[in-house]
Each structure stands twice: as C-alpha cells, then as structure tokens.
C-alpha cells in the first residue's frame, strides 16, 4: 500500500501536513505526535521582522468552528531560522515554511533568507492585508496575485505554494493567476472572514472585530474551492479547511487535493494528524486501494 506522493517535486511519505498557524513549529505538538510520521510540517507564518500580533481576545469559538485574529504574531525570520528549522530537521519529515508580509518586499526578503536554509517548500500566505491597498488582502485581487507570485518565484530557491484566500468571488481566477505567475502549487483555503458579537457585553468577541473562520463548519466551502481549483489548474493543490477525520481528508483528496493540511482539528484532538494518516491507511486497506494516487481527483 503506497501513501507516498510527489508534491511540487518534493517526495512526501504521505499526503498529510499541518495547517499553518495551528501547529506552531511543531515543538508543542511533538509531545502528542511523532512529527516523523507526518508527510510535512507547515510552520506558523513568519515575517522579515518579529510581529506582535493583535490584542486579545484573539480567538473565539463558533458553531462547529472558531474565529481567530492572532494577527500573525511571529518571532521574525532570524529567530525562526536559528531555532525552529534545526528543531524540525531532527525529524524525518518535510518542512514547509509559511511566509507572511505586508508588502511584496517583505515577502521577498523572507523568501531570500530561506533560500539558503534547509527547508523543502515555501507556502506564501497572501491573505495578509496589503498595506498599499487599503483593507483588501493581496489574495483578493488576481492581478496582484500573479504579480506577487512572480516576484516571489524570482527570489525563491524552493518550490513555492501560493496560499489562497477564500474571500473572493471566483477562486478559479485567483488560482489561475497564481499559476500564471509561476507558482509550483496552490494551497487553500485560508480562513473565511467572520465576526462574532458578544451580546451580553454588547461588543465584538474579538478585539480585532473580525477574524478568520476555520474548522469543520467551513469544510463544504473548502471542498468546493479545492474541486474548482483542481479542475482549472495543472499545478498540484494542497487542500485544507475543516479536516478533522480521515473521511474529511479523503473528501479533499477525491476532490483533487494531492496533499491535505490539518488545522483547527489539532485544537480539538492534539493527535488529529496521525489519527488521520492511520484512518486513510485503514480506508485504503478496506477498499483495496493500492496507491493513494488512485484517489487524487477521482471524483469529477
């Protein structure tokens, strides 16, 4: 039985990674799961300099999901390179570094720094608000997506995954823009923008007013966008959004995702990632599927 896949030219022992921001750089969850069992670990978004993030409360629970407005707190690329990469390298797993920025220059700076580091793939979070385009994120404008993708590709030494925002009218246009810009893969979905109001205090549940919705509540939107994207681009798709069980992961795989990421589910079950890998194996065994690749995109 084969679970191994090739993703954007990188060999993975299985198609399961973590969703950026939900797993830190793996240190805390390494007490619950053997990181060496994962296809890859995707790290929390890192910027060129440390970011303090948003004021608290930064998260709140919602029905079947949660909102977060962490605000991309991160220790900056220097400390990340010094501490987090060596930690992850101890494990037999691939490293996908998620990168954030407020300007194209900030992204490119981080990507350049990582060029000389021992990491396998870069995932570019373009749901960050573009400081030059009031409010809207890079990922909400196909033209900007194409442009920033090619700027990043020019600087990158590792394959580049563009991580798409679902807060768009037409995900296909954005995915095609990333492909046109030279992306080696796309990942989706990032969080859906949402809000919760605390009616007893008559204020926003999050200090930041809005936050990103994640968890099983969003899965149908994610599966739809992964399917539409996989139908429309030739580059591989890393699917995520609400994956809690092996069945959820298989939905994304059958919809066309070559890899899947587990996010919010880690908070509900710290061993979710390995439980999902074992569940995929069990499904394949029961259904006599020899190779996971038979399942990728099998539903059209």
């Amino acid at each position, binding site marked *: 039985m084969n679970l191994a896949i090739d993703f954007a030219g990188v060999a993975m022992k299985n198609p399961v990674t973590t969703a950026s*921001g*939900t*797993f*830190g750089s793996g*240190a*805390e*969850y*390494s*007490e*619950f*799961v*053997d*990181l060496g069992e994962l296809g890859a670990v995707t790290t*929390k978004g890192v910027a060129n300099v*440390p*970011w*303090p*993030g948003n004021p*608290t*409360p*930064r*998260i*709140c*629970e919602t*029905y*079947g*999901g*949660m909102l*977060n407005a*962490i605000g991309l*707190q991160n*220790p*900056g690329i220097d*400390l990340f390179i010094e501490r987090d990469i060596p930690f992850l390298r101890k494990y037999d797993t691939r490293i996908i570094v998620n990168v954030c920025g407020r300007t194209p220059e900030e992204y490119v700076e981080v990507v350049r720094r990582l060029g000389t580091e021992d990491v396998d793939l870069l995932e570019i979070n373009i749901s960050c608000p573009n400081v030059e385009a009031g409010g809207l994120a890079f990922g909400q404008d196909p033209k900007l997506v194409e442009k920033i993708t090619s700027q990043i590709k020019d600087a990158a030494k590792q394959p580049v995954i563009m991580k798409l925002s679902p807060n768009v009218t037409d995900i296909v246009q954005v995915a095609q823009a990333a492909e046109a810009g030279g992306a080696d893969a796309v990942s989706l979905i990032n969080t859906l923008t949402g809000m919760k109001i605390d009616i007893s205090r008559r204020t926003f549940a999050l200090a930041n007013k809005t936050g990103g919705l994640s*968890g*099983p509540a969003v899965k149908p939107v994610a599966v739809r966008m992964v399917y539409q994207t996989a139908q429309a681009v030739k580059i591989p798709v890393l699917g995520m959004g609400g994956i809690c069980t092996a069945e959820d992961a298989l939905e994304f795989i059958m919809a066309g995702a070559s890899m899947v990421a587990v996010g*919010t589910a*880690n*908070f*509900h*079950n*710290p*061993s979710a990632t390995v439980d999902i890998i074992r569940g995929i194996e069990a499904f394949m065994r029961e259904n006599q599927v020899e190779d996971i690749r038979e399942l990728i995109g099998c539903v059209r």
Partner: protein
Amino acid sequence: MADKKKCAAEVVSQKLVSEGIYSMWLSFPERQDIAATAVPGQFLSLYCKDGSRLLPRPISICEIDREEGRIRIVYRVVGRGTEEFSKLTAGDTVAVVGPLGNGFTVHEGRSILIGGGIGIPPMLELAKSIPGEVSVVLGYRDSDLFLKEEFEPYAAVYVSTEDGSVGTKGNVIDAILEQGLDADVIYACGPLPMLRGVKDYAAKKGIPAQISMEEKMACGIGACLACVCQSKERDAHSNVGNKRVCKDGPVFDAQEIEL
C-alpha cells in the same frame, strides 16, 4: 517524546457547591501520570461531547488526590460547555488533556494565598501543600462562602465580601489591610481587577506575587498564540513580549506582566 494524549477521564462524583458552581472529582483510568504529576496552579483542558463545541475548556486544578489518582475541579456554569459538564454524573466520561501549564512555585517564608470568586478553588491544593505560616484571603460577592470551610484546616482564613455581609466589606486587599496581614510572598487567582490590586499591593510592599492569569485558548498547549499576555521583557519564545498563558503561565510573576 510523543506520549501525551487526549484521554477519557471518569467522573467519580459531582456536586453543586453553590449557585451555579459545581465540584467534580475525576479519575484517569487511561493515564496514571495525570494526577501523579499535577501541581497546584496547573489546569486541565476539558472537551465537550457536543460536536458543535470544539475548543477545550481550561479548568484549574482544585485538589489532587495522588493516592487515588484523582483530581478535583470546581467550576462555574457560564456557557454551554460548562453547562454540559454540569450534567455529568458519576461513571460518565469527559475527554481531557493535562495537566497543562506551570503551577505556583512555592517559596520559603510566610505566605498569603488570595482567591477571588471562581479564582478561589485553584488555591485549595496550594493551601494544603504549602509549608510555613499561611494566611488565606478569600474574596466573595456576598455571604455565599463556597469552599471557605475547606481551607480552614490548613490556614487562617479571612474573608472579604463586596456587599459587606461577611468579613471585610470590599475586596481582598481591603481585608489584608484591615487584618494587618503581612507576608514574604503572595499567591493569587481571581478576576483581573483583583489581580491588579494584588500586583500594586505587592509592588508597594516589595514582596513577590505570583498570579494566575486567564485568557481565551484554542490549543491550550502553546502552539496557536491565542492566549497571550504582555510581558515586561521580550521573552525568548515570542520574541515580542507576548507570553502564552497556557504554556508560559497560567502562573506568572505579577511584576513581569502588564495587566
């Protein structure tokens, strides 16, 4: 070592101790280490059975029975999760992860333990285990003095009530002043305004104070950066002066945290 796990705790007993406040003893048939390693000030993450509620509910450890491998928690029903827990009866199970966070670091000398409202339960195991001269100051809203008598075997217990119905009228600091209590170290858990008062008092007195903080949590283990509080110094983990309540706390040196 990947040996931690979410596991099923068994409800040994549950009872109502005050209006809307429940006390529950849990045992851990699958994991002997939980009660064995827990220390006062740490917490457990409890998970709901209802799938519409995914995030853990952090609840402090109130008592530890290492011999029987049990932990007691005392919690107030404030929402759907704690309501769900309040319906559990002996023999039911509830999923938990823990013990989590750093507990109180016990110092030599005379100590004052301060608990306010639902911050009272976490001080009980500390009161039981702390050596030296101990005063306990408990702040209540009114004359419903839940848990008070459980502290009495271990320490001199002073009470403040907001409505003045019992003990000192006012807050815990008013009680400390009225009683003229003195100490070498303070340990406290309670609402933010109380913790601010404790911090100021300790600063003025020039004595160390350890306070237990609260913040909304998602992972409960230090990975998601949801539960931060601002630290005076740029700490090694965050590099931006944001300490994680769940991992770096919940107990902090009062003077190191911005309240």
